[in-house]
């Protein structure tokens, strides 16, 4: 091996690491894109990021590698997960395309772009391969720090401004202005009476369902689920778990057992049909 080539190449260990972790990173990226549930995507992305952090470290960017793990994967990705939870962790996206031709165009563009990038990199004259050793001679963090606080100090200050602005912006965006005075309980009660919709407190979930999770609707005496019992947010997300059929089956089993024991014939099977079915 000539000195030139030596400068180009890296150790075998790094090569092994690259091929294994690189494959993982690509897999993670693909999963991020193609998995249906946002939460899975987020986890895959986190994995990819950790792989990337390892690559940073391998490339001598120790500070960045740590930051990548701590800040990016640890903070930002968790923020993602937080929002995913807020929006609904169980909701699965349909991957069916609704815009005509969008998918094909996207794939075509992506493919073309990738080929172009690869071609560009292949064409680029990357002859002098310095290695990071000299730059990291005084320690990576110290080196970065001296650059940040000298040459890039202005940009650094600006990023500070940017972060503050972003924080304020996020607050503004998510903050709901309270326009009027908060209504007292009495007023709310009066309003309820005036509207005449539902006077007593809403029923709790799972009351007659033998489950007590918040997303399980309580059953009405006839065995049908009552949506009123479920939290509004869950209702809107469509995350109500319906266990009424289970309850009815249980009931039927109970009655069958009772028949067997009391040796009576079934009164009428049709009565156990759900009311809306009966009405059809």
């Amino acid at each position, binding site marked *: 091996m000539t000195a030139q080539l030596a400068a180009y190449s890296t150790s075998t260990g790094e090569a092994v690491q690259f091929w294994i972790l690189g494959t993982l990173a690509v897999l993670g990226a693909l999963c991020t894109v193609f998995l249906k549930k946002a939460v899975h995507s987020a986890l895959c992305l986190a994995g990819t990021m950790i792989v990337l952090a390892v690559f940073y470290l391998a490339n001598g960017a120790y500070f960045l590698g740590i930051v990548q793990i701590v800040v990016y994967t640890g903070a930002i990705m968790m923020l993602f997960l937080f929002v995913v939870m807020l929006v609904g962790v169980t909701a699965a996206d349909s991957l069916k395309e609704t*815009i005509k031709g*969008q998918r094909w*165009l*996207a794939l075509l*563009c*992506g493919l*073309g*772009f990738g080929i*172009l*990038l690869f*071609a*560009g990199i292949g*064409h680029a004259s990357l002859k002098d391969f310095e290695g990071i050793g000299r730059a990291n001679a005084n320690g990576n963090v110290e080196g970065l720090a001296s650059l940040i606080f000298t040459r890039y100090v202005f940009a650094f200050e600006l990023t500070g401004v940017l972060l503050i602005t972003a924080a304020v912006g996020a607050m503004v965006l998510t903050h709901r202005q309270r326009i009027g005075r908060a209504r007292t309980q009495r007023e709310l009660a009066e309003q309820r009476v005036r509207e005449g919709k539902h006077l007593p407190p809403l029923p709790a979930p799972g009351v007659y369902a033998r489950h007590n999770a918040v997303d399980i609707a309580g059953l009405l005496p006839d065995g049908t689920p009552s949506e009123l019992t479920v939290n509004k947010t869950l209702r809107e997300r469509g995350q109500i778990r319906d266990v009424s059929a289970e309850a009815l089956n249980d009931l039927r089993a109970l009655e069958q057992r009772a028949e067997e024991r009391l040796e009576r014939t079934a009164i009428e099977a049709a009565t156990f049909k759900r009311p809306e079915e009966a009405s059809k």
Partner: protein
Amino acid sequence: MIALLIAAPLLGAAVLLVGGRRLDAVGHWIGTLLASASFVIGLVLFADLLGREAEQRTVVQHLFSWIPVAGFQADVAFRLDQLSMTFVLLITGVGSLIHVYSIGYMEHDERRRRFFGYLNLFLAAMLLLVLADNYLLLYFGWEGVGLASYLLIGFWQHKPSAATAAKKAFLVNRVGDMGLSIAIMLMFLTFGSFAFEPVLSQVGDTSEGRLTAIGLMLLLAACGKSAQVPLQSWLGDAMEGPTPVSALIHAATMVTAGVYLIVRSGAIFNAAPDAQLAVTVVGAVTLLFGAVVGCAKDDIKKALAASTMSQIGYMMLAAGLGPLGYVFAIMHLVTHGFFKAGLFLGAGSVMHGMNDEVDMRKYGGLRRYMPVTFVTFGLGYLAIIGFPGLSGFFSKDKIIEAAFAKGGTEGWILGGVALLGAAVTAFYMTRVMLMTFFGEERWRDRAEASGQAAATPHESPGVMTIPMIVLAVGSVFGGAFFSIGDRFLHWLEPVTGHSEGHPPVGAWAVTAATVVCLLIGVAVAWAQYGRRPVPAVAPRGSLLTRAARRDLFQDDFNHVVLVRGGEHLTRSLVYVDHTLVDGVVNGAAASVGGLSGRMRRLQNGFARSYAVSMFGGAALLVAATLLMRAV
């Protein structure tokens, strides 16, 4: 002084037309006064000319430069020589008489002031025509008389027929005017000028072909103005105008402008025999055409109009003979001016007395009721048929003689046509005479049939009869006065030139033949209309009669080919303009609009679609960068 000739009637026209209703009471007097003033000035100038040597009788007055553009000099300059003087006297003289006549004739018309304004305008334009020193100024007058004729034919505008006739006259004249303007352009191209002097004196320097072209274009112009075949169709319709107008414009003066133009441009025609031949042919054809049409018309004014056409045909024929005939053409023009004006005024007087009835089949036996009219009309009649001793005899006889003198086969043919024309003229004029003044009183039947009390025809007032008498005197003695001692010949010769012809037969033989023809014509007419009663409703008649009644299908031809064809052409062009030319424009707009509509679909509101476009754009940019580097 010359300018004053024109200025007087022009002033009259301006005052009368701008003055408004305030002048209604005195308008006709102002008009007549200024027309007469012009006549008086003409007489003074005439006396002045007579006092000079024959060679120095050309007076040129340069007023101002009209259109001064590099290489193009059009001046307002007047040229008074013997030829124009003759016309000036004819125009102002007959014009003044007709002004006087109109005072009576138009008495009951509320727009009489305006009528006199138009008449004055006509006089000014006609004087400008004959006094102009260059062809462009002549063109000015030429169109000016066209305008006056338009206004006067259409004077009774509330009648659609009058308005249509006026428009037709103007349009047909415009076709002729096109010829004149092309002739002027040819002159400018050839000689660099269109003043009489440089053009006519340089005729020898250019080719005969060019001169023939100019000559033919001038002939086209003359055909339009003088109602010669093939542009004759307007004259008959022009009789929609008041009768004094027919007398002044469509008999005595304006229609003879074509003859003036050809005689004035004699030098050009002399050097272009082909053009000359064309003039004689046109003259001869029109002569017969007019005569044939005249035989069949029952409308007294239209019969006279056809006669006018025919008589101008004589003049054209003479003018086409070159120096042989110029003088006689003008002489016939002048005598014709007298007797035809007289005849028209007579016809007007008859109509005046008959409640504007124009159909001769509803006249008859009028000689007892309007003696003055009868006598003056009769004298005019005798003059036009060339009764020996009266003015028409002298002038027409000379023309026939000159036609024979042309020599060769041409001479025989032309002479024969002229003789035939004389016979037919005698026939139709006798017919008019007999149907109007002799025979039974057919107007009574009509009045009884319609249940009205028979309106007794009455003689016209003095203001109308006096001009008729004066004109009758002119028609009786004019010819003799001009011919005795060849006065007219000597007077005009310096301008037009003259060469004695040598007729193949003796002059007396020609005269005798003329008289014989005339007697035959009268006799046939007497046999048909004098001895038998005239049916009040026109019989169907022979094919020729029916054709003649319809102006030998000229109008039908025009209608089918020009009017109908033109209508189709314009209609299809309107369609083409709308669908094709505008369609291309609108189509371009619509396709841009359609394309935009398609493009708008791309703006579907989906952020991801925009992202694809953005990403595609980025890819293209990368590609472009790579390509640039590769190059």
